[in-house]
């Protein structure tokens, strides 16, 4: 008798949202987003936090079945109203303040150690890239988690467009700094803008994803719109939001949190339930939406995709 043991990321097909329902919903929501985009708010005006994010509707995105999650998708309202975004404050309800972030026009520069540095308008970028939907787990270093259907494209697909030099070893991500709408930037002692980074090997990994949407809509600002990176095997703070610059470099970037609190938030920050944060355990996580507490998994359950990246790095502080 054949006994098939499901791997961690597999779920029964019966629990996957049928594509027709998903694409119909996206079409309806896309029309709603288009209506909103017709009248973008001026700087400083506040959008309704419950309304779709500003921006052009996303092109149709097929869900990639390779990246399945064994847990239910977090309700959209939960995932878009419980967020960390320190430029807007330290509390979880920053979604209201984040609506002031002007998301059009928006450009992102890709530069540094590349053959062809470029600056992309966000809508041109979305139109040019191979858009898909991926359901990923997100594990925050604060021991809560959610499951989100992100729309976007592989980070490596963007990097291919600028052709990294062989000397490039790291990728540095820089977040927008807009003092007019980000009260956190008044705290001038912090090393703004928010910087994060990864190795070139991590950037090339198939899981490394540039996100432009969630739940079939343009990505709202509180979740990092209009463009964020997502490394699902790392703690969430590694996935920089509202990106304006991506730089390839031969020097390891020193991240915002590494500068402020390096003993707690390091460069690698791979999820590991056996390595506690200095102030709390990482053994379990609270699931957003249900409140259920479940065991955390090494590499957030993505070990089969990424564990090989770290086999020769045992002297590094890989888990914080």
């Amino acid at each position, binding site marked *: 008798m054949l006994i098939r043991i499901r791997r961690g990321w597999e779920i029964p097909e019966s629990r996957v949202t049928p594509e027709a329902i998903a694409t119909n919903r996206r079409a309806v929501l896309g029309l709603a987003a288009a209506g909103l985009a017709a009248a973008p708010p001026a700087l400083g005006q506040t959008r309704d936090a419950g309304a779709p994010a500003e921006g052009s509707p996303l092109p149709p995105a097929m869900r990639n079945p390779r990246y399945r999650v064994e847990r239910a998708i977090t309700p959209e309202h939960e995932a878009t109203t419980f967020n960390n975004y320190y430029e807007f404050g*330290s509390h979880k309800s920053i979604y209201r303040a984040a609506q002031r972030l002007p998301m059009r026009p928006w450009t992102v520069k890709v530069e540094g150690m590349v053959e062809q540095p470029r600056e992309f308008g966000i809508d041109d970028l979305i139109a040019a890239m191979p858009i898909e939907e991926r359901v990923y787990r997100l594990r925050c270093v604060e021991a809560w988690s959610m499951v989100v259907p992100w729309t976007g494209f592989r980070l490596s697909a963007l990097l291919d467009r600028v052709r990294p030099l062989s000397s490039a070893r790291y990728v540095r991500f820089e977040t927008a700094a807009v003092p007019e709408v980000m009260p956190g930037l008044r705290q001038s*002692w912090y090393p703004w803008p928010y910087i994060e980074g990864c190795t070139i090997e991590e950037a090339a990994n198939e899981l490394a994803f540039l996100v432009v949407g969630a739940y079939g809509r343009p990505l709202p600002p509180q979740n990092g719109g209009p463009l964020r990176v997502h490394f699902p095997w790392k703690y969430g703070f590694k996935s920089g939001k509202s990106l304006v610059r991506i730089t390839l470099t031969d020097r390891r970037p020193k991240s915002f949190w590494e500068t*402020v609190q390096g003993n707690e938030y390091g460069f690698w920050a791979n999820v590991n339930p056996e390595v506690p944060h200095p102030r709390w355990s990482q053994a379990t996580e609270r699931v957003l939406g249900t409140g259920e507490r479940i065991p955390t998994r090494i590499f957030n359950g993505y070990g089969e995709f990424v564990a090989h990246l770290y086999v020769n790095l045992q002297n590094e502080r890989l888990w914080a």
Partner: protein
Amino acid sequence: MNASGRSARRPGGAAGTAAIALGIAFLLLAVLPAGLLGPSAPLGEAIYRLHPPFLNTFQAGVQRHLAPWLWDDVLLPVLLLPGWLPFAAIGLLLVALGGARRRQRRAAAR
């Protein structure tokens, strides 16, 4: 006068002297951030230089467990004041209070 012929020391006099001493200490402390970071460097910057994680943890505690506005509207404006100003203000206040207390004591002794 007590049995030995000396004036009894009033607690108010000692408190006044202590307040003046503490006030002078605060005034001296005010010189530190101004001297190290410049006269216009905010208090938050001085604290951050002394202990970088403190303000982040403090802010998270206030905004998550008390109220976001308490940080934005009350504490942050204080942290944005020039670093020397709160120390100098407290120092001057303590010196003034201590001086008033001592004057009261002298007046009562006469």
